[in-house]
């Protein structure tokens, strides 16, 4: 019987090696797999390349992972936020690398990586510094820049409901990057707010079909990052 359920966060993330590329779902705190990120901090892998839209809030979740010094490079669209001090300090100190990618190109690169599309053209960034050094191609009278698909060794994902086969649904705007990241990683690890029986998700409404999912852990009462930040909590 196919069963992707894992009983603990620790065992779900235990094989992530040093040097891994890890996609982490979420847009700010919405859809952030904070429990899995904390599990990764506890696990200790270092020299990581992390792909996320942002760089985390306060000193919990992704910001705490960055603060731990284990992230070599961030690939993101927006590394600033009102509650993000960790990344700017490390970046200015030259202790972390940054690849800045426009949000839509980041999403498309991840989808392309998952869909077997190695490269594509987009008008985004043409005539801006972010296109410097990239191939420009004129198609039907307009310039486009060549961008490459992005893949990862692991994806850390937060979803709303999951079954043991790995079918997923999401909650409102916490969907964001999660479904596309599921497709682009060799191993996709999911924290689900609720596990339901196989057949408990309507086949019309499954957002991530189980083929894209490898491991599922139930986290019934996930922390809300902004609550932790408001309380001044630092992980660990």
């Amino acid at each position, binding site marked *: 019987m196919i069963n992707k359920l894992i009983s603990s966060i620790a065992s779900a993330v235990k094989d992530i090696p040093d040097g891994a590329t890890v996609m982490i779902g979420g847009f700010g705190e919405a859809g952030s797999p904070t429990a899995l990120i904390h599990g990764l901090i506890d696990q200790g892998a270092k020299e990581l390349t992390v792909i996320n839209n942002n760089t985390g809030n306060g000193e919990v979740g992704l910001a705490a992972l960055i603060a731990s010094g284990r992230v070599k490079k961030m690939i993101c669209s927006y590394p600033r936020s009102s509650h993000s001090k960790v990344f700017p300090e490390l970046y*200015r100190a030259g202790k972390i690398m940054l690849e800045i990618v426009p949000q839509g190109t980041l999403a498309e690169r991840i989808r392309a990586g998952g869909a077997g599309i190695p490269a594509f053209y987009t008008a*985004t960034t043409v005539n801006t510094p972010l296109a410097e050094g990239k191939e420009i191609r004129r198609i039907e009278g307009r310039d486009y820049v060549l961008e490459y698909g992005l893949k990862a060794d692991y994806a850390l994902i937060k979803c709303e409901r999951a079954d043991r086969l790995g079918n997923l649904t999401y909650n409102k705007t916490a969907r*964001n990057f999660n479904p596309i990241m599921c497709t682009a990683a060799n191993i996709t690890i999911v924290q689900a707010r609720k596990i339901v029986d196989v057949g408990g998700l309507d086949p019309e409404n499954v957002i991530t079909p189980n083929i894209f999912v490898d491991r599922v852990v139930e986290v019934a009462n996930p922390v809300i990052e902004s609550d932790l930040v408001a309380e001044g909590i630092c992980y660990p």
Partner: protein
Amino acid sequence: MLPMTGGMKGWTREQMAMRAAMDIPDGSYVNLGIGIPELVAKFVPEGREFIYHTENGLLGMGPEPAPGAEDSELINAGKKAVTALPGASFFHHCDSFTMIRGGHIDVCVLGAMQISQYGDLANWSTGAKGAIPAVGGAMDLVAGVKTIFVISQHTTKNGAAKLVEKCSYPLTGKQVVTRIFTNLAIIDVTPEGFRVRELAPGIGFEEVCAKTDAPLLPLEET
């Protein structure tokens, strides 16, 4: 059409947003940038309906929720709590930018650091050493949305011009801005350069010229 107060000079943030809202056609799909552009949603003219898109995966975005009703998983691109109206839909980031890059959004209203007379926009980085670049979805929006409105103070806090011959800051996009709503005037980007479309109350053409670092064409008599 605009509420006037005696002796008022120039437009407030709210009035700039209101004036921009008046120029958005009924039934438009609209994306609002962070800051003053967000105020546009408060001033939809009577009899018109706009559908708001937020790039983090919601079409049919409604106003902010009542205090205490915030949901950390229902937010806008500025990461503020919002609501979803009847007829809304949620989708992932890639589908969201299909709407943007694919030309499906009719109007986007953005803030600006500089706008050139050709419609070039700079609104993501000063390019200064040590500045942390943060582009978000701005470059995708200007590349993909048909009509780009800018709402901005006419000058910086230090009085430097934001409407310039050529942007000194790194560009967000080239030849992308359609119309600019400032505290002093409404200005179109035309093939001939900036052209004043309307002056704010108490503001003369000469004053706008003085605060603009590019040639400015006067109001066209119609």
